Structure formats: structure tokens, C-alpha cells
């Protein structure tokens, strides 16, 4: 049974309980497995549960704890987004294409967290191939938002965000190509960090758009995210784009001091696309940071408006190349009774991929095709630099940039499904951060009509510490991050 002490415990508190033998890793693991079983039929947040494996891992962690060899994360349970390859455990990426795919190796971040002694409980549902902002594109059905099960949890890491918010695990992982950690973190009321491009290895993440994809932590607080990031980050020989940068202990960098911190507020992020109630909530959160000594500075990111057009050329173009590997031959779905090789390719791909994935492959193929390459792909790469230069210029006068994570709160199922462009607008405040390769996080900023709002904080390249510290300050002064959705209360 997960009691409220465990449910609301931070990494530090869980570590204390484990090292002081108040609870064993096996007990913790069984408690969270039971909670997953209890709540998953309502939320559909988890697609694969690894009960036996988790108990084995927990017992090993308990031995390590009793030998006094535990690290801060040893024995703490976690759920992975189902985009990370897990050796011997089915990895679907939310797609029929990979419904039966069992990888032969672990993603680097999976291996690194395993080395720390983290216990993997299972794998979280997600938008198909991480393409979506509502979790409605998953082959395994939509994830429900634990704050209101008639609403979406956001996407694409919606299963991870919903599971965390509902207390199915104390830690989860996500990936973010255009907002896929920050937007669901915002809609489910949790803290989620997209690190700087290159900070975390992409080896073993099923590729969507390789120049934009990053893996990151999602947890109840910035402090917990800091612990996870320290374990996940760092150079990896298996990813030639991973950065050769020193990895600090992100947790020990959380001083909580924001005196003199200059926070830039881009006027483009508080425009008419933003729900007025969300705007008011974000501004009142920023006032808290101002009270703690930070300075709010008006800035401009004049080409923000072009981020969405740029992204919806570059991400589909990279996706069309990455997803060419799914041919029905080497792994993944194969159609029944193919007439010939061409028929095998065409039907395996058309039957294996869902509508949104096919749309993006089409758009990307078009943007890369002869006669259109310069007008679309090359042009978008030029605009990417213009957008990135805006950020670098802004960072000459501010330390971090702040705004909303999403234009509104969670919306009802089906509300934006008929119009792809309406759905794409969910990420208007997050896309540019991926284009510029910057770190960004979403932290809970209170509720509007009972639904969570997220504050987005954007940092300089490789300065995750600054945005984690600002969020940490906020979480020392307010209790927005402790608000829990009204689900599974009978277990408390």
C-alpha cells in the first residue's frame, strides 16, 4: 500500500527511508506496482508492466543498500517512456509498427539509471513516435489526464506525466523534440526538464528528429529532476552529438538564491494566443521570484512567430528520413501476404503507421524532394539560425527567459484532433527552444479552473542549473508543485 508519506516523498526523503530501513526497495516497488494496477485502467498511462524484473531489481537494490553501497537513486522505482530501448522488454514507441519489438540493448540513459540502482517498473504510453501533443495518436489508446479524465494529458510524454501525477511512480523519463516533456508536465502539474541538446545521450531513443530530440527527467520537483539529470547526463561514445562537457552535481548546485537573477519576459510569449487566466497565473508565479530577489526584464524574441513553420518543415523532414528504416523486413510490423517486395513496403508502412505519423512523413518527404529542398528544408534551416540568434542576443542581457509552457490548460479529447494545425499550436511556446538547442523546464504554477498551469523557464546552453535553481526557489516558497490530482485518494 502506498501511504501518503511515500506518495508525496521526494528523492531525498525516499533515500532516507531506504537507508534507514524504514522501508525496503522491494516494499516500495510492490506498493507502486499495486498503485499502477489499481489506477491504470482509468488512465491508460502504462503500456507494459515489468513486475518480476522490477522485484528482482528491487531485491538487488536492497542488497546494495544493506552493503552501504547505495547512491542517491538506488532502490527508487521509475517508469520509462516507451521510446527508450530496454533490453528484453518490449519497446513500442506507441506504434503498431513496433507492437512486438523487443530491443537487444538498453538506451544509454536506461543503462545509466540502472547502474545507479533505479528500479524500472514498466514503460509509459505516448503519442505514436512522439508525434502529438495530446496522446491521442497512440496505437494503444489515449492517456487520460488524472486531474480530469475527460481531458488530454498533453504529449508526447503524456503517459509519463499522467503516471507521475497520479503517483504511479516517484520518477519518470520523457523525451522532448518540440515540447514533449514541458507541455505534458504543464498539463499534468509536474516538473519536467528538457536538457540542452547534446547534454544527454540519444543512443537508444527511437529517433524522431535527430537534431531536436533530447531525453530528460520528469518528477514532482526541480530537486528530484536535478538528481535524475546528474545520473542521465554526459558524453557517450555511442552518440556523436552528445556533448563533451563536464556534468555538475545538479542537485548540489541548487542554492535557492535568485537574488539579482535577471529573468527575461519575451513579449511574444504573452501575446493574444495565451489564455488570459493562464497569463495571470504565470505572472503571479513570476512575482514570487521577483519577491525572492530576481529582476523581471522585458525582452523581445522578434522571430518567435516563425518557430512553428520552421519546426514543421525540419521535424517532419528528419522524421521522414529516420522512419524510412521501417520497411517490414528487418524489424517491426509486416503486412500479411505481400504480393511482391513493393507491396510489402507500401502496406507494411501504411498499416503499421498511424495517421499523424504518415502525415509528417509525407510533409517531410515533400520538403526534401527534388525541386522543393531549397524552398523548404534549406530555408527552414536558415530561419532556425535567425531564431537561435534571437535567443543568444537576449541572453546578453538576461540570465534566464520565462513564459508559459502551453497556451492553455488541458483540453477535452477530440477538441483539436480534426485540425493538425490547431494541435501544432499547443507547442508555440516550446518549439523554438528545441530549434535553438537550449535547456527548458516546466514547473507547476497553480491551477486555473482546477487544472494545472506550467511556468516555462529557458536557460543558456548547458546552464540547466540556472533554470533548475529558479524553479527550486519557487518550490521553496510556494506549494504549487505539491498539489495532487483527485485520483486514488482512497489509497492515502
Amino acid at each position: 500500500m502506498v501511504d501518503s508519506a511515500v506518495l508525496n516523498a521526494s528523492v531525498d526523503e525516499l533515500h532516507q527511508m531506504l537507508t534507514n530501513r524504514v522501508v525496503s526497495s522491494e516494499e516500495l516497488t510492490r506498493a507502486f506496482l499495486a498503485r499502477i494496477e489499481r489506477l491504470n485502467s482509468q488512465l491508460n498511462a502504462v503500456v507494459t508492466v515489468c513486475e518480476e524484473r522490477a522485484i528482482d531489481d528491487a531485491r538487488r537494490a536492497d542488497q546494495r543498500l544493506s552493503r552501504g553501497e547505495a547512491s542517491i537513486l538506488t532502490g527508487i522505482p521509475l517508469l520509462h517512456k516507451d521510446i527508450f530501448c530496454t533490453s528484453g522488454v518490449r519497446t513500442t514507441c506507441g506504434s503498431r509498427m513496433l507492437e512486438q519489438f523487443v530491443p537487444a540493448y538498453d538506451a544509454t540513459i536506461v543503462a545509466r539509471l540502472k547502474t545507479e540502482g533505479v528500479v524500472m517498473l514498466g514503460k509509459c504510453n505516448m503519442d505514436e513516435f512522439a508525434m502529438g501533443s495530446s496522446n491521442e495518436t497512440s496505437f494503444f489508446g489515449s492517456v487520460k489526464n488524472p486531474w480530469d479524465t475527460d481531458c488530454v494529458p498533453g504529449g508526447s510524454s503524456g503517459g509519463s506525466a499522467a503516471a507521475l501525477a497520479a503517483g504511479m511512480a516517484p520518477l519518470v523519463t520523457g523525451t522532448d523534440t518540440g515540447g514533449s516533456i514541458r507541455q505534458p508536465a504543464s498539463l499534468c502539474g509536474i516538473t519536467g526538464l528538457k536538457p540542452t541538446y547534446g547534454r544527454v545521450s540519444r543512443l537508444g531513443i527511437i529517433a524522431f528528429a535527430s537534431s531536436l530530440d533530447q531525453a530528460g527527467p520528469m518528477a514532482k520537483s526541480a530537486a528530484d529532476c536535478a538528481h535524475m539529470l546528474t545520473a542521465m547526463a554526459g558524453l557517450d561514445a555511442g552518440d556523436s552529438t552528445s556533448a563533451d562537457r563536464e556534468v555538475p552535481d545538479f542537485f548540489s548546485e541548487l542554492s535557492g538564491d535568485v537574488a539579482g537573477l535577471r529573468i527575461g519576459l519575451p513579449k511574444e510569449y504573452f501575446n493574444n494566443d495565451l489564455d488570459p487566466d493562464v497569463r495571470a497565473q504565470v505572472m503571479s508565479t513570476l512575482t514570487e521570484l521577483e519577491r525572492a530577489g530576481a529582476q523581471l526584464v522585458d525582452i523581445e524574441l522578434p522571430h518567435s512567430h516563425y518557430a512553428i513553420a520552421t519546426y514543421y518543415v525540419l521535424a517532419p523532414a528528419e522524421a521522414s528520413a529516420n522512419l524510412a528504416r521501417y520497411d517490414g523486413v528487418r524489424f517491426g510490423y509486416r503486412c500479411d501476404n505481400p504480393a511482391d517486395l513493393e507491396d510489402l513496403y507500401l502496406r507494411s508502412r501504411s498499416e503499421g503507421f498511424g495517421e499523424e505519423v504518415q502525415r509528417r512523413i509525407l510533409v517531410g518527404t515533400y520538403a526534401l524532394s527534388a525541386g522543393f529542398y531549397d524552398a523548404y528544408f534549406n530555408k527552414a534551416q536558415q530561419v532556425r539560425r535567425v531564431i537561435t540568434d534571437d535567443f543568444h542576443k537576449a541572453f546578453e542581457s538576461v540570465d534566464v527567459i520565462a513564459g508559459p509552457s502551453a497556451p492553455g490548460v488541458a483540453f477535452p479529447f477530440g477538441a483539436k484532433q480534426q485540425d493538425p494545425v490547431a494541435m501544432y499550436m499547443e507547442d508555440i511556446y516550446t518549439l523554438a527552444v528545441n530549434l535553438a538547442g537550449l535547456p527548458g523546464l516546466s514547473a507547476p504554477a497553480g491551477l486555473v479552473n482546477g487544472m494545472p498551469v506550467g511556468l516555462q523557464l529557458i536557460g543558456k546552453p548547458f546552464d540547466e542549473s540556472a533554470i533548475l535553481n529558479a524553479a527550486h526557489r519557487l518550490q521553496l516558497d510556494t506549494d504549487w508543485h505539491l498539489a495532487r490530482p483527485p485520483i486514488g485518494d482512497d489509497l492515502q
Partner: protein
Amino acid sequence: MPISQEDVEKVALLARLSIAPSDLPEVTERFGRVLQLVNELNTIDTEGVAPMSNPHDMVQRLRPDAVTTDNQREALMASAPAQDQGYFLVPKVID
């Protein structure tokens, strides 16, 4: 210029996707909406701007060309939809 159903069929073939004739009008309409969105790129002057493919303008890191992992043929082929004696099976290509 709005995209035609013929254009969409041509791109679909390049991408090895087949679109059912009954779905073609809707696929074309939604494809067109996305193109309309991205056509906004034409309104910004990028004369002389170098294209950016990596946000930190990183260059490819090289490594020694040495074996670091043993061959895992069986484990890697275990996910193949059809295989025989270490080969992937496909429909007959040559008569």
C-alpha cells in the same frame, strides 16, 4: 499554389506509403493546411544566412575505427518478421 491530389500521390510513392482512394481528398486537404502553415517561411528574408543543422554548430566527432562490441546477430535478428538461417526473408524478387 494549393497541392493537388496527384502531387500527394507522387509524394506518397516516394515515401512508400499507400493512400486509399477514398482517403485521398481528406489527406490532401490536411496536407495543404500544413503546407499553408509552413509557407509562412517565404515572408522572411534569409539572404546570406548559413543554414543551421546542429544548434551548437557542432562538427562530427570521429573515433578510432575499432571493434567495441561483439556481433549479436541472433539477438538483433530476433525481431525480424521473417528469417531463415541468418537471412531476412522477403517476397521473391528475381524470377
